[in-house]
């Protein structure tokens, strides 16, 4: 670094700083453009019909139609997936944090990372091979596929908050002669509710937009609303996927409207999760 080149070095520095700022602008710009596109096109097409009426499969005249079956289906699918993934995820985290020897902890942690990295479409193919070949598509199959995606997310976030629980709490309880299982269930776990909730909300936000795991497990459906997971259920992302490939502009309008609802739901839940996370962390830090 020679002094003679100082002006040039300053120019290079300014250039690089400008490029970094440009990169940040591009990223934020992308977000604004995508969200704005969805908002602009979706807002005009949103009406009550979207969530109250079912799609009409074939008609020469324009009729009021919606995606009620997709919204109901998504509710059932994501609800069931959460019921499957949440208890298992919490138990995995409890085992890893409270019982497992270090080597097992590292290994299962790696397994969770690997599971998290398996592409969603491969999870869909897996459940297709496991359940759908032979028994056909069903809401259960779709929910199970979504649960496979949720499990590592829930387990990871629970592990993180469990690690934040001060060990003095555990030790105090154990010193009073409370059994280990009661210490874990009634002293340690209640401390983590905020964090577990955050992780769950984030996982729900993530899978409610997932299309790939449902394509092969719960996508070949009629146009009727159904609450029963024993046959295939339509879902919002799959409906958007199908409508986006249709040539009919009316279908596109419904796709934009559904996309806007989905996006608002996801943005809202992510914000809620962020708020929950800061709150619960502050609480844990205070109890330390």
């Amino acid at each position: 670094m020679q002094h003679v080149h100082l002006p040039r070095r300053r120019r290079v520095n300014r250039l690089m700083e400008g490029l970094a700022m440009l990169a940040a602008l591009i990223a934020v710009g992308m977000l604004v453009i995508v969200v704005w596109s969805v908002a602009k096109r979706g807002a005009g097409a949103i009406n009550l019909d979207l969530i109250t009426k079912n799609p009409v499969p074939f008609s020469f005249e324009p009729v009021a139609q919606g995606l009620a079956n997709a919204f109901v289906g998504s509710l059932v699918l994501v609800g069931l997936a959460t019921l499957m993934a949440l208890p298992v995820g919490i138990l995995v985290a409890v085992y890893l944090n409270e019982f497992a020897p270090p080597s097992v902890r590292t290994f299962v942690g790696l397994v969770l990372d690997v599971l998290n990295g398996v592409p969603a479409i491969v999870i869909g193919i897996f459940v297709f091979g496991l359940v759908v070949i032979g028994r056909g598509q069903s809401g259960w199959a779709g929910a199970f596929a979504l649960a496979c995606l949720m499990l590592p997310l829930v387990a990871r976030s629970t592990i993180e908050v469990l690690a934040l629980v001060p060990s003095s709490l555990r030790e105090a309880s154990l010193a009073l002669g409370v059994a280990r299982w009661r210490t874990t269930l009634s002293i340690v776990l209640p401390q983590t509710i905020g964090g577990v909730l955050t992780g769950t909300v984030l996982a729900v936000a993530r899978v409610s937009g997932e299309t790939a795991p449902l394509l092969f497990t719960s996508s070949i459906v009629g146009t009727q609303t159904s609450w029963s997971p024993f046959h295939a259920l339509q879902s919002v992302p799959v409906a958007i996927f199908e409508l986006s490939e249709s040539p009919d502009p009316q279908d596109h309008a419904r796709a934009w409207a559904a996309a806007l609802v989905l996006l608002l739901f996801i943005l809202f839940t992510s914000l809620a999760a962020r708020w929950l996370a800061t709150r619960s962390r502050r609480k844990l830090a205070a109890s330390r």
Partner: protein
Amino acid sequence: MSSAELTPEATRRPFTGRRVRFGDLVLQVVAGTAAAAATVLVGLITWKVVDGAWPAITHYGVRFVTRVAWNPVVGHELYGAGSFLFGTAVTSLLALAIAAPLSIGIALYLTELAPRFLRGPVTALVETLAAIPSVVIGLWGILVLGPVLRDHVEPGLHSALGFIPLFGAPSTSGSSMFTAIIVLTIMILPIVSSISRELFLGVPSELKEGALALGTTRWEMVRGVMFPYARGGIAAALILGLGRAVGEAIAVTQVIGGGVFIHWNLFDSGDTLASKIAASYQGATSKLQVGSLIYLALILLVFSLVMNLAAQWIVRRVARRQGLGART
């Protein structure tokens, strides 16, 4: 506690108490079963995918991986992954090539340059980009981005740089590998930039201040101190981003158009492993075709396992060397 109980064994396991309680055993077994189930799940995924692909594996062997063919006509059935591998490589590597400098730039801006009051909000905005579902990005890609690129960007690039085979004649549909590359770039940007940001935040300020005190400009400090320090972690972040791009099915299916051929024209349609699988969800009929589709999924699974383990290995190695928290 009497001193008689402080046997070496008791001191080694201080929390166990006098004897194993029944409740402890139950909780440990139940929680242990859950952890075992998660591990078994990964094995089951691998086994089921191999099992489903078996008809195609036995029929075609490894020749399948490189063959360029996808003909489902009964009597003339012939399948291969060659063109999809090519499409996957071109789209995800180019997306990574665009996303890598952008993400590192974003991370640098957020850690070094941005005014303090902007850092939080801009970080949150970039992370929000990751929360947009791929089907929504795909919807935007097929209805907005594709036509815009076809009408305004691709003709210009073609006439200016048409002598390079990458920039051939634009397709009429608006579906192109180029659209897929842009869509993938948007999807991997937030992942790579948020990991890079955490890595840059972990660079000890003594090192940075030391460099600045020696008279470096800020960029020279970044290049001489921060990049070498974060190099391993950034490599891992790039691998994870690549894994995301390779595995993305939905948005790519929506914008890429499909087709079984190998060509270098980015402005024409193509197909990737993941997009081919997603596009065939209603159409697979014969046993061999279903097997071949699952064979594609198997290739994808192997890729994702290798890339994930490589990234984890790098992260763990870097963490051990620098004593940083190993987070991905």
